């Protein structure tokens, strides 16, 4: 009986410790799981930065790509920028830039200064495409399969670790063995 008296609070404490440990290991609580993963990317039609030609979501189907929301005013985008350059140049990853709530002049100047990793840049001046993609803070990067499905979402500056662990395997699988 007295053994039970000590066992009950002990077990309760253990349960609490396990619960809290799970909570701590869950990672950054400000990261919101995207409900869009596993769904086709939302429709949009946006002007291209370079020439103003309208580009729609359907035109981006057919090849696995990264869709990267960025802006010239965004400091996190400068952090991930060298990695994007490397992915585009070394690994030949096709990256579409979504210029989120920016002005064409500022964006063009930024790309001229830092280099352009994007295959094409689309202007999301009002942030409407961002809203449909569930973007809540640039930079955010979506992995889109050849069929136009969103396979993964990365929030915040892209890291080497995220590339190796999460994104490269998805792109590799989507491309098929090379």
């Amino acid at each position: 009986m007295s053994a039970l008296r000590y066992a009950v609070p002990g077990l309760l404490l253990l349960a609490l410790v396990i619960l809290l440990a799970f909570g701590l290991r869950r990672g950054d609580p400000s990261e919101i799981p995207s409900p869009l993963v596993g769904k086709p990317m939302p429709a949009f039609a946006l002007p291209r930065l370079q020439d103003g030609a309208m580009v729609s979501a359907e035109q981006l189907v057919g090849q696995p790509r990264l869709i990267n929301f960025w802006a010239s005013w965004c400091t996190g985008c400068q952090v991930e920028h060298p990695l994007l350059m490397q992915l585009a140049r070394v690994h030949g990853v096709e990256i579409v830039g979504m210029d989120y709530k920016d002005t064409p002049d500022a964006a063009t100047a930024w790309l001229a200064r830092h280099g352009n990793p994007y295959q094409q840049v689309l202007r999301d001046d009002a942030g409407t495409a961002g809203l449909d993609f569930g973007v809540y803070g640039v930079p955010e990067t979506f992995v889109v399969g050849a069929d136009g499905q969103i396979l993964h979402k990365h929030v915040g500056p892209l890291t080497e670790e995220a590339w190796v662990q999460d994104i490269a395997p998805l792109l590799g699988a989507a491309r098929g063995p090379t």
Partner: protein
Amino acid sequence: MSHWRGWALALLLGLSPLMAQELDPATEQRYQKMLAELRCVVCQNQTIAESNAPLAQDLREQVRKQIAAGRSDAEIRQYLVERYSDFVLYRPPLRPRTLLLWFGPALLLLLGLALAIRFSRASRKPVTVPAADDEALRRLLDKHS
């Protein structure tokens, strides 16, 4: 400050209430109530009614537009959940995943009550058991002395 700038400013200030679509009082109340139950996804401890984050402003504008377009509260909520997941709702839906969230506190309360009853019973027992009869005790002592 030159004259025309002052005029332009006055004009802008005068026009600004007109630029936002005016809602009638009942709809305005519905709009405000709705905002108070939506979480700003950037600054997660604020509602989109309280937050000044640009995204919260966008979402307020969306809600206002959709209300003006005659969409129901459920439809607007659905629209937001499709983009930002259940995180935007301060009143999470009842699902297998959220069962613990909804009923956990009640469960803890019941557990606490059960423990409290158990311990109070256990601690009352030792007090009641040695209720010795003084008379019998004296007789017992007298017999052996």
